[in-house]
């Protein structure tokens, strides 16, 4: 039982980060029906900028928390700038082009950002300075660290803040109006270019925070870290129903838990020696407490994409998405 609980704790931590990244995908999709495939790279840039700042300040003797906050403080504006330039240069000129075109430029931007990072930060795996002391607490047999608690708390706060922004402010109202119908929103006096740019910038700021959280949690950063993380967050957004903000939050957390449980149990479930009649067929391998594992934990990364495929086949609009078919 404590193993199960532990896997859930691991999954929720990772899922919270997925959720924050997924918000960036879903906001952009909700407003201009574009999958911004370069979003994962923004997360990576955030982690890298924070890495540089934290490494530079770590020996200065400032309190560790202040150093990390400063790192985040630098990463957020840099990522916002990246997000804005991305929208301005690669997507706005193509807003009336066929939908495939901005998708291709998104991939192009993603490659450019990766290689920029490669040139600036090298291809090595960078070790985040371990300045935040890790303390482990045990709750009902499951270990949870202070860093994990902070990650979950920050992610919840970010999601709450975003929900408040979208549903309670004028900008949020304008965003929702633009999402419903950009032409009509424009006729009502909303500057839709500004609203769209703001959406990108907000998404990028969230990505920056997610990058710092990911980096401090695992202690490493590399120029390729954005691509798989981005794809998983995208899957989370689709799982929750792309374009739907609460859906992205739910999808992220669910995906994290599915991944953790999947990786934790796939080996046991696919151990043929557990099944009496198959074990009898291959008695040599299974004799004396042996194992014959079909799929081991190296398939951990498969679960996110398995979920993506299942959702697209069975419920394309996602868990919380409305059945609009066409859009998803």
């Amino acid at each position, binding site marked *: 039982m404590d193993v199960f609980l532990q896997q859930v704790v691991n999954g929720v931590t990772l899922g919270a980060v997925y959720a924050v990244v997924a918000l960036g995908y879903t906001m952009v999709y909700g407003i201009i029906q574009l999958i911004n495939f370069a979003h994962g790279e923004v997360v990576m840039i955030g982690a890298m900028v924070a890495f540089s700042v934290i490494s530079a300040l770590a020996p200065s003797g400032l309190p560790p928390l202040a150093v990390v906050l400063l790192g985040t403080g630098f990463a957020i504006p840099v990522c916002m700038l990246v997000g804005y330039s991305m929208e301005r240069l690669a997507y706005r000129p193509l807003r009336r082009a066929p939908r495939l075109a901005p998708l291709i430029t998104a991939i192009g931007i993603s490659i450019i950002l990766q290689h920029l990072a490669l040139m600036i930060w090298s291809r090595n795996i960078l070790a985040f300075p371990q300045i935040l002391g890790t303390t482990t607490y045990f709750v009902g047999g499951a270990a949870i660290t202070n860093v994990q608690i902070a990650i979950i708390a920050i992610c919840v706060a970010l999601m709450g803040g975003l929900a408040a922004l979208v549903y309670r402010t004028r900008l949020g109202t304008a965003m929702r109006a633009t999402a419903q119908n950009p032409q009509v929103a424009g006729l009502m006096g909303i500057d839709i270019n500004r609203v769209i740019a703001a959406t990108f910038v907000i998404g990028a700021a969230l990505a920056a925070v997610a990058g710092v959280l990911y980096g401090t949690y695992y202690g490493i950063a590399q120029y*390729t870290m954005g691509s798989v993380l981005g794809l998983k967050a995208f899957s989370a957004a689709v799982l929750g129903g792309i374009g739907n903000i609460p859906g992205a939050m739910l999808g992220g957390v669910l995906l994290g838990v599915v991944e*953790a449980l999947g990786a*934790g149990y796939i080996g046991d479930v696919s151990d043929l020696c557990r099944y009496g009649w198959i074990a009898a067929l291959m008695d040599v391998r299974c004799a004396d407490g042996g194992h014959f594992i079909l799929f081991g934990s190296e398939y951990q990364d498969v679960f996110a994409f398995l979920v993506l495929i299942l959702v697209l086949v069975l419920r394309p609009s996602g868990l919380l998405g409305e059945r609009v078919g066409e859009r998803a």
Partner: protein
Amino acid sequence: MQRTWLALALSATAVALAGCGEQAPAPKPEAKAEAPKAPPPPPSIEIKIGHAGPLTGGIAHLGKDNENGAQLAIDEANEAKLKIEGKDAKFVLLKEDDQADPKQGTTVAQKLVDAKVNGVVGHLNSGVTIPASALYNQAGIPMISGSATNPKLTEQGFKNVFRVVGRDDQQGPAIASYLAAERKPKLVAVIDDATAYGEGIANEVEKTLTAAKIKVLPREKGTDKTTDWKAILTKLRGRKPDAIFYGGMDATGGPLIKQGKELGIKAVFSFGDGACTDKMTELAGPAAEGLLCSQAGIPPQAASRKFLDAYKKKFNVAPILYAPFTYDAANLLIEAMKKANSAEPSKYLPELQKLSFSGATGPISFDDRGDRKDAEITIFTMKGGKIEPIAVVKGGKTFGYEEFLKTMGGG
């Protein structure tokens, strides 16, 4: 006032120049006196030994270290005034830079072959040594590497290829037998990164542990890009292993041990040479303390006192990594030439194969493949952010590091 200063400076320069002038010609008469005596009666023979390693790039310091080791052996042989085929032997070291690049490695190998070297010490990297060894093999030139640990090097069936350092696949058994003997675990979990290296070393560890009647959990696997090990580690925590071995590099091993400690796993974490670096502390922080890991060969400070003193005296620095091994490699070539009384590769090669030699890294002899018999593997632990040797495994036996140093000091 100015004039006096100028005059003073000039005279000082003159004195200095005079000093130089005086020093330089001094040895000349001696050399002249010796020269007419030496050459005519016993003709001398020039023996060329090639050394190749990276002298530029990120690991240039290691290449230079290797080269110094070989140079020391050559200089000592020249001082000993050896006679080969009845002639005064004069050894020369041809130094080449392979830039740690396989392509450049074959280029310099061809250069050495064209220069008709009598033997080669090198190269440094396995990836460079393997393609270069094919060229030396074609030319029939004996080659001894002091640092290439990839098993493939000596599995090519080349009769002229040797190494004086241990193989990667000797490491698995070594760290496993150390674990079994010193930590006496009842249950061990083995994880690998699904690469040829990681899976290979993990298989060897598992084999050795099973042979020692220690229970091993079903293998867990990540990839060489895995960052999240928590799912696997949580599962393992439920099985309560006493030790965990990971076959993989430090980039994935660091997060693994960090996450393991965060989950409250008390087991001993152990690694192969891929994760036997100080970078583990950088990646994992204090969680890396107390890990066990192995490296082929012995740390340079464990080489013989005589070698260490001579190296220090000649180069004014301490050897960094593999210098004792290249020193031994060059000495082995010279020793075989002495035994065969010939510097002709085809004549001294058979002697090299059956040589039994006591070198700076201990007794050396080769098996049929050209691997060193009973090569040492050193076990390290992480202490205060640095890896420190604690034991040496040799021929299946474990020696404490201090104890091993004593045996080396005696030899």
